[in-house]
């Protein structure tokens, strides 16, 4: 294993982040706020450790599987450490652990926050906060797809779990082309949403920040009341539409735009994803209409936003769900665990795996009836191999196991059960808000520091699809 090459690639990641640090610094200088030193110093550190490896380590044309996994995993961790420096140096509500939590939440596009007063922060800090989402949303896809396909893809568990069978079909391009497609869709959606929100009456600054958070399915808002703080139905509708798009496979979106046959209209995955989403919206709307709201349309408005927000793992809020009936909270928790499609910027189990799970369940029942039958799961006419099926099952079980362990640890720290469970599900799913003390308009400031650290680990595990980080601990088996 060539540590030098790994360090050089991580340096490239830091140099990429430096661009956005520089923009944040410019904002701080223009606004003359007290975060100039924080950004200047972080920029220098980032440039130092980004450029230094280039002096000694020559370029390499290939990466082994383990080197690729190391680059992606360590790159994320180091990016979060450096990304936390502006917050740490700024101070205020940002203690060391709070800054780490907020940064990991940003880069993993979770959107959980420890801040009690977001609007008290200077614009440069708010911009950096949103930027961590935008980098993180494209980061894992960008870097994983740039680096990993250069190695022996058949040995990569990470590639198999990151990209579903449908996704593989849609990414039947070379790595560079795939990257361009994803970047084009990502940047295109961001621009489109920024323009739409500006037309809808948001300031350009707020529009950019909210767009960063929407397309990355992150959820960091510039307002204390999240999207509810804008008091605009039009803005909520625009954000709902873009949240839905961001939860769909980017390859399918690109194919739809470019007129290819394998598009969102012909994909059964997308079809079922939308059906499940709308079923959830309907159930929640009806319950809210029956218990909380006089008007069905008001209930529908809030239900739609919250279901789509959690279902796409964005985490924006248009109302406080802590006061909602338990039935609706359970439905929202389901969406917190299911999340959106593979190949999007959302986290969580992913809808594809849920589909594979249920199809596998049906297959097992049929095999019980006809033990000698040969049954193959298919999605959109493409067969799913037994290896993928097995990996999906193990992933789901391990995912739920991590939720259980983290919930247990949090309750040991005297966090109430609903907060502990929903916080864990929300962080490992990269959703953001949970319920009770960590609800949609609440925050994670009341969670003990040790709990915040555990939740930040959950965020990283969720974003890196668990096996990425775990495989680093099994160094011997790579040989």
């Amino acid at each position: 294993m060539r540590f030098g090459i790994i360090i050089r690639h991580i340096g490239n990641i830091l140099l990429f982040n430096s661009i956005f640090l520089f923009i944040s610094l410019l904002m701080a200088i223009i606004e003359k706020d007290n975060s100039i030193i924080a950004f200047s110093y972080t920029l220098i550190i980032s440039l130092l450790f980004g450029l230094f490896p280039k002096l000694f380590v020559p370029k390499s044309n290939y990466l082994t599987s383990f080197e690729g996994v190391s680059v992606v995993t360590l790159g994320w961790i180091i990016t979060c450490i450096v990304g936390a420096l502006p917050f740490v140096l700024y101070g205020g509500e940002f203690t060391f652990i709070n800054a780490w939590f907020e940064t990991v939440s940003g880069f993993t596009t979770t959107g959980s926050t420890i801040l009690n007063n977001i609007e008290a922060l200077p614009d440069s800090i708010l911009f950096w906060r949103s930027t961590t989402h935008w980098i993180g949303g494209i980061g894992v896809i960008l870097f994983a797809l740039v680096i990993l396909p250069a190695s022996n893809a058949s040995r990569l568990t990470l590639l198999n779990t990151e990209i579903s069978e449908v996704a593989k079909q849609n990414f039947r391009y070379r790595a560079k082309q795939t990257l361009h497609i994803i970047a084009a869709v990502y940047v295109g959606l961001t621009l489109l949403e920024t323009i739409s929100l500006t037309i809808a009456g948001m300031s350009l600054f707020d529009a950019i920040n909210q767009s960063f958070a929407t397309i990355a399915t992150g959820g960091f808002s510039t307002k204390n009341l999240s999207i509810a703080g804008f008091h605009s139905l039009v803005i909520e509708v625009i954000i709902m539409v873009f949240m839905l798009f961001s939860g769909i496979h980017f390859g399918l979106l690109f194919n739809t735009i470019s007129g290819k046959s394998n598009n969102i209209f012909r994909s059964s995955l997308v079809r079922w994803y939308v059906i499940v989403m709308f079923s959830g919206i309907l159930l929640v709307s009806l319950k809210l209409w029956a218990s909380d709201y006089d008007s069905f349309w008001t209930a529908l408005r809030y239900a739609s936003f919250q279901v789509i927000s959690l279902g796409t793992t964005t985490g924006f809020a248009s109302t406080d769900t802590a006061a909602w009936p338990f039935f609706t909270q359970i439905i929202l928790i389901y969406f917190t665990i299911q999340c959106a499609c593979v190949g999007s910027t959302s986290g969580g189990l992913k809808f594809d795996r849920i589909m594979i799970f249920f199809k596998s369940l049906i297959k097992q029942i049929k095999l019980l009836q006809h033990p000698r039958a040969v049954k193959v799961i298919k999605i959109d006419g493409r067969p799913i191999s037994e290896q993928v099926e097995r990996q999906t099952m193990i992933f789901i079980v391990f995912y739920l196991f991590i939720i259980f362990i983290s919930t247990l640890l949090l309750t040991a720290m005297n966090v109430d059960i609903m907060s502990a469970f929903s916080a864990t599900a929300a962080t490992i799913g990269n959703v953001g808000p949970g319920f009770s003390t960590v609800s949609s308009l609440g925050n994670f400031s009341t969670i003990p520091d040790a709990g915040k650290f555990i939740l930040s680990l959950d965020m990283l595990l969720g974003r890196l699809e668990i096996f990425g980080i775990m495989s680093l601990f099994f160094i011997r088996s790579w040989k």
Partner: protein
Amino acid sequence: MSLKLKILTSFLLLSLMMLVSGIFSVYELSFVNNKVEEILKDNYQSLQYASTMLESIEKENSAILLLLHDEWQKANLILKQSDSSFLFALSKAQQNITEKKEDVSVQDIKIKYAAFKKIWQQPISETSKANNLIWYDTSVYNRYIDLKHHIKVMIKINQQTMFSEAQYIKERRRRAILPGLIAIISSIIFSFLFSFFISTYTIKPLKRIISKIRYFHKNENFFDAEIKTNDELKELEEAIQSLINELR
């Protein structure tokens, strides 16, 4: 890039980081220093003047009670001294107005003191007011308490400012220390990385060249030390290669 330039650039980068960290820390520390000076000069001084004024009016109040008991000689002496001390502190406080609403507060104190002073400027001993506690209670005590309240308002304004400035200083102190702390940690990491790079991309290639030469000496095979860096080590490998070719 030559080895010399690589090593030099590395140290330059490290020095730059240390320098910047030092500049930031010094800047923040000097800010903290200035703020502390400001607090001592402005707010603490104002508190001192307010304390003097409080002490003066307490003495004047005691002197009025002495006047009520016909001890006018002792009372007049106390009143003269206290009045002088109060007016001195008040004039200093007027010159030291630094906070919002402090000017209003000082003006109020001036007006209230003038009203309080009027009481003891008029004869008290050997008049109907002598030994008249009811008169004291209705005419003197209320004004005394009112004046005291206004002085305490001035104290509160300055105390609140001191408290918020202290919080701000605490924050800036943290910002002064942190760059230094981060610089220390970064330097340690940098040192480890530097040692690793020197070992991997300078020492190991040198050792590889030596072992390949020894191997070539025994077996006379093709010489290739697999040097990938574009520096003096590559030049050395090429020079040895040329030498071998020439000797052949």
